């Protein structure tokens, strides 16, 4: 099987110039693969570098060493050295990312926040809204809220809007940073179901999940991040 994500010896250190140039090693020697239809859960205590690894795979954090191979339109691209334009293309058509918090844009209606990734890939607004509506419905966001911007929603509602936005596209790689953190049991079950559907579609996923029960339900494999600890 050909891996969708193939990370070899990736490392990251922050240099804090404002604090006298302190070097803050985050991770080193990060090496693992993720195959299509597989969900790899990163484990390790807070501060072990799980979110940093996820951000490196998304190209949000730069990688100081090693290589992050991403299968993009049939070819392997090293995200660690890719041009900004190519990273944007990869995000548009290959890698989706569900962050912990929704970064809401003022004034944009919830239904459009969710449908935006589809519109960016050329789908008509009406079709995108229809699919966004289905997902919002499944995630129990009442229809009367769809036309409102999510900025005033509760934490759990914002998270569900964020999940809908992350799951709406048919991208072959999905990164999940604590997707169930502020959800109730019913909505956590919906997320588990959505992850299972993505697996059946062959999507490769990397997730951070603190909830043992959810981890047990979605993980095909666990990668322990403490092995990549960079601290001396």
């Amino acid at each position, binding site marked *: 099987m050909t891996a969708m994500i193939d990370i070899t010896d990736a490392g990251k250190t922050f240099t804090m110039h404002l604090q006298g140039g302190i070097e803050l090693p985050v991770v080193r020697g990060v090496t693992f693969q993720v195959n299509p239809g597989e969900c790899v859960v990163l484990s390790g205590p807070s501060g072990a570098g799980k979110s940093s690894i996820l951000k490196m795979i998304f190209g949000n954090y*730069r990688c100081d060493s090693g290589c992050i191979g991403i299968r993009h339109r049939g070819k392997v691209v090293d995200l660690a050295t890719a041009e*900004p334009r190519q990273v944007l293309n990869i995000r548009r058509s290959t890698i989706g990312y569900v962050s912990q918090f929704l970064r809401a*844009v*003022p004034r*944009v209606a919830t239904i459009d926040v969710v449908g935006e990734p589809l519109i960016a890939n050329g789908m008509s607004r009406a079709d995108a809204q229809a699919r966004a509506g289905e997902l919002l419905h499944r995630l129990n966001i009442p229809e009367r809220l769809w036309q409102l911007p999510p900025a005033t929603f509760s934490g759990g509602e914002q998270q569900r809007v964020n999940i809908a936005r992350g799951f709406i596209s048919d991208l072959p790689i999905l990164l999940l940073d604590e997707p169930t953190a502020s959800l109730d049991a019913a909505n956590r079950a919906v997320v588990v179901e959505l992850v299972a559907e993505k697996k059946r579609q062959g999507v490769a996923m990397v997730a951070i999940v603190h909830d043992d029960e959810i981890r047990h339900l979605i993980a095909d494999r666990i990668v322990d991040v403490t092995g990549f600890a960079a601290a001396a």
Partner: protein
Amino acid sequence: MADQNLVENDEPLLVAKSLSKSFGRINACRDVSFSLYPGEVLAIVGESGSGKSTLLQMLSGQLAPSAGHVSYRMRDGVTRDLTTLGEAERRFLFRTDWGFVHQDPAQGLRMAVSAGANVGERLMAVGWNHYGRIRETASDWLTRVEIDVARIDDAPRTYSGGMRQRLQIARNLVTEPRLVFMDEPTGGLDVSVQARLLDLLRSLVAELNLAVIIVTHDLAVARLLSHRVMVMKGGRVIETGLTDQVLDDPREPYTQLLVSSILPP
């Protein structure tokens, strides 16, 4: 693996090569090079005096560089060096394929003529002569930038600051340019007015697939609008990359200072 990181499809729209500008002994801008692609939004950030406005003026052909050059792919697909363009050609480019949104709308608008005429003027400059169609298109654009069409015959000097800025944007976009330069477009506005303008700009840029070079000292503006960012200091580009990468993982001391200086809302 690096050789497989081939850039996908299209050619750049604008290419800057080793641009420098000195005023006497002052080097306002030193050795700036980059390529801008269709539909790409590039933010140039840095404090006052970092050289960003000088750079913008050179990129838009308003200031001759001391060294280096800027080339632009015209609508006919031919790439031309800006310095070889005649004055008439350059003005034509400015009226058709380019827009320039100034911080002060009074610089980009004619304050004493009606809003409709401000928008219609750009159309007439490219040969439109049917009064009804010009007025209709101007009304459409006022609506798109959220100005009440009932105000079409009023002069912008009777408008609020936010409305003037939206009118300036309509005037620039009516000829469907491919590249728009923006110099601190939200500069003098209240925050609530700023948010509305940013949101409007964001959707128009995406809808029209505009390439934009935006100069701003406001990192929140850069984050909301741009794909890529160049950080300038002392006339040089000190850091460049994807906007979220530079803002979330700044590498240079000065960029770290800029990012850490943002006040939490």
